[in-house]
């Protein structure tokens, strides 16, 4: 972490960048928040640890409109989002100085809580420098430990790899975290009967409070005017609608980002209701891979997005039923 701060100070001092976009320590040891730092002094609050799951690439849309360059720290998975934004001309590469930071998997505070850890005062083992496999948590009830693996965000178990897709320089080591099959969760749902699937999603989506956090955090949801903010559609807000509202919201949103979603997992991370939103996006990714050839959004900045492309031989929609 110190290395990142030192480098940020250097870049600020020689005017390479006008500001730094990173994470600032929150009130609690596990809630760092995205923040701009404009002076060397401000950087004393900078943190980078296992709780810095927040993907900063979306903030670069705004930062691209500011005077001067912005130093931004991107984890390997965040660089896919940045690339995708570049491809869609939403960010300006010239306005970004990207330091690719190492990643050893990010932590999910909810999973720590689920292990019965309460009253957290301090956490060690989450620093990026230590190679700890165990988190030592100081709580008001005494010291607790958790295996790092067990309390990682779901998305880190299906990490796309620790290679940065776009950067100016790299700092820090990464650790392989992939230990699950990317589409296993989707497949488990596909194996259910339609009635079971319906019941499953009805239960999950009924929890939605339409806070829009998933939309707001999503790097693919970068439309200047979002359909959910328009009062021309009755999809605009959480109405006291008698039906379908949530499913509508989620299907529409998943559809808007289909072929553009990099599977960064931010939606599921921020959802206050713990809805597994990534399942929708991953379902689309799985279908696109199978029907139109493997495609990873954000892998590059040139290839055509699957939904803005076609071939004469594309499968007919009836394939969905035929393949069983």
């Amino acid at each position, binding site marked *: 972490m110190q290395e990142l701060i030192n480098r940020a100070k250097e870049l600020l001092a020689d005017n390479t960048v006008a500001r730094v976009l990173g994470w600032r320590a929150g009130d609690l040891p596990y809630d760092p928040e995205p923040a701009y730092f404009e002076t060397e002094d401000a950087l004393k609050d900078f943190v980078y640890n296992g709780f810095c799951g927040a993907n900063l690439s979306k903030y670069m849309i705004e930062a691209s409109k500011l005077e001067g360059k912005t130093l931004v720290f991107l984890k390997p998975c965040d660089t896919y989002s940045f690339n995708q934004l570049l491809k869609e001309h939403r960010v300006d590469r010239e306005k970004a100085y990207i330091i690719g930071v190492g990643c050893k998997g990010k932590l999910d505070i909810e999973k720590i809580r689920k292990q019965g850890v309460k009253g957290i005062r301090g956490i060690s083992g989450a620093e990026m420098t230590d190679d700890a496999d165990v988190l030592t948590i100081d709580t008001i009830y005494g010291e607790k430990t958790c295996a790092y693996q067990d309390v990682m965000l779901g998305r880190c178990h299906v990490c796309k790899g620790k290679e940065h897709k776009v950067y100016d320089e790299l700092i820090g080591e990464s650790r392989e975290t992939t230990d699950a099959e990317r589409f296993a969760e989707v497949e488990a*749902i*596909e194996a259910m009967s*339609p*009635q*079971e*699937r*319906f*019941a*499953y*999603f*009805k*239960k999950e*989506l*009924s929890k939605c409070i339409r806070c829009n956090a998933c939309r707001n955090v999503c790097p693919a949801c970068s439309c200047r005017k979002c359909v959910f903010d328009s009062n021309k*559609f009755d*999809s605009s807000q959480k109405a006291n*609608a*008698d*039906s*379908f*509202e*949530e*499913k*509508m919201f989620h*299907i*529409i949103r*998943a*559809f808007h980002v*289909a072929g553009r979603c990099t599977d960064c997992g931010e939606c599921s991370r921020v959802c206050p209701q713990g809805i597994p939103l990534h399942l*929708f996006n991953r*379902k*689309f990714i799985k*279908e*696109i891979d199978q*029907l*139109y050839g493997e495609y990873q959004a954000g892998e590059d900045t040139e290839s055509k997005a*699957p*939904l*803005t*492309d*076609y*071939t*004469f031989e*594309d*499968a*007919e*929609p*009836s*394939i*969905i*039923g035929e393949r069983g």
Partner: protein
Amino acid sequence: MSIEAKEEFRPKIVAFCCNWCSYAGADLAGSSRLGYPADVKIIRVPCSCRVNPMFILRAFEKGADGVIMCGCHPGDCHYSTGNYYARRRMTLLFSMLDFIGVENGRTRVEWVSAAEGARFSDTMNDFVEKIRSLGKNVRLEDLRCRS
């Protein structure tokens, strides 16, 4: 003891038809006196590509039991390529609807040209039969709305 009215199930079916091929196909079916059930409500669109996936979701929300989209055969689109994009979109949308539990049989895409009145009528008869066999659709609704 409650008395249940034994009414025949009349599915609500929405058919999006493109102006240039399928709608004309429906016209031909009509002028050729080829029948199809009145359960099918046709909505004319300029091109199959005009069908925003939201239209289909809305139809289901408003209580449709089945939705069918008809357009020009691939290669015959009045706007050259509209139906190729529509094909990908509908494939993905149908797969998502299936994923959340709306049986795949309730959604269909058929390519019907202006000269295929008989094909239009057969397609609709077949689709209505299929929806009748599937029965009433699930309501895409929020759990909190009903107790």
